[in-house]
């Protein structure tokens, strides 16, 4: 209640969002199991007996994955359909998470997962993608 004022950092009249969230976190079950997150956190040096913190990390990770997936989905939808026929329109509805979309989505987050192209794919292989017209 008053711990924000007591800390002297800033004055809050109500609970910080974090406190409320931590309290409500036990009701929400993240998709990533707690044990798994705890294992990876322990692997990198962070060992915490408090389950709520682990759930906080797992929810944050889930949000991250969801953001990346939604960006990839948007890229996938934004790509024009290769063949426009009535018979094949069903294919357009089937969206597949491909490496291309994923690499574009992760690019914004600073993760570079572009795999190198095959040598004989095209004459412009290996040229800087900025100068190359796709």
């Amino acid at each position, binding site marked *: 209640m008053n711990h924000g004022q007591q800390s002297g950092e800033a004055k809050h009249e109500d609970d910080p969002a974090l406190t409320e969230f931590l309290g409500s976190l036990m009701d929400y079950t993240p998709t990533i199991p707690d044990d798994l997150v705890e*294992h990876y956190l322990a692997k990198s040096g*962070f060992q915490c007996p408090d389950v709520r*913190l682990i759930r906080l990390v797992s929810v944050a990770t889930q949000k991250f994955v969801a953001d990346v997936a939604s960006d990839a989905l948007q890229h996938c939808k934004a790509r024009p359909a290769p063949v426009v026929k009535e018979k094949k329109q069903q294919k357009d509805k089937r969206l597949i998470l491909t490496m291309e979309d994923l690499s574009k989505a992760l690019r914004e987050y600073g993760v570079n997962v572009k795999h190198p192209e095959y040598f004989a794919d095209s004459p412009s292989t290996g040229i800087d993608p900025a100068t190359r017209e796709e």
Partner: protein
Amino acid sequence: MTYGDGEGGSQRRGSQRGSNDFAYALARMAVAQICEGVEISTLQDSHSREGARFSSFQESALERLTDVVIQYIQSVGKTTQFYANMAGRGEGNALDVVQALEDLGAGLGFNGAHDVERCLGDSGVVKDIVRYTGEAEEVPFVYSLPRFPFKKGKRRAPSFSGIGGEMADEHIPVWLPAFPETKSKEVEETNTEKVGEVKSKENGLSLPSMQQSLDVDRLKVQKSMEQEDVQEPGEEPEGNPFLAAPVWVREKDVPRVFCPSEPKNEEDSIGHVPEKQKNIPPLEAHAPPGMINDESRLGGTEDGQKTQRALLRFKIGTRKASMCWTIKQSLEDKETRGRRRWNAKRNSKPLTQM
């Protein structure tokens, strides 16, 4: 600590995955579940909202995403610990986690990032997460996990009191683990099987035979040898072994073994008994490794009767050794034959010359 680590991490993926197969598989499933639940609503001309979802994945894409997610979790952990250590604490707390999330989210930005004196409790990152949990559907993990990591319970040897046997030995406390059962039935088998196997059974026999060796006023070296001659293997818990009657060795007919002369430098390493010396070196040369280890323990016995037991043991090995000796003998015979021929030739030559 930034997302750039994802690239470096992927290079170590091979070794990572090798040791963390189970965790990796779980992470993959969880990521797939999350992706499955991602939906973007599109507003079409007909004003009907259509939720587009992923229907399937490219396997390599899923694996990359799983790698990135694992790296993300590890980065959060590392950064959290870093901030905790910076503040002089050993364990991270909620504010450290929020700071770590802010660090990782700095690439995309969050509300309030510009504010230097922002409060961590009201951080934009937290609010984003709160909003996410409010909007997204709650999808629990598909499988129920066993306790992770899985620890095997070690089966402890029962104590004397656990077994229920009354110990007449006052010097042995009841809470100590009980003596293992002696395997008397396998004594006869050891005579016919390889000597190497006896070594594995010795773990169960060491204590009783060691005890019996203390009975007698002689140096008993080989524990497996005890089984062959002593026919009372399971009597240690009864009576004080120090006061038991000494066990006499029965003499058995052992075929005399032909021992070629041996170099003297092996005396020190093996034993002081001349008979043994003759037996051991050729066996060392030709016997399987298990036998060699057993023989090395024979060194040190000085009792003449022990040598008879040694001969007993070597009977097992002598089969193989005798083969080699027969080869040696045959070689020697050939040699002698050759010499004889040569001598005959030599002898005959003067005759012819003459």
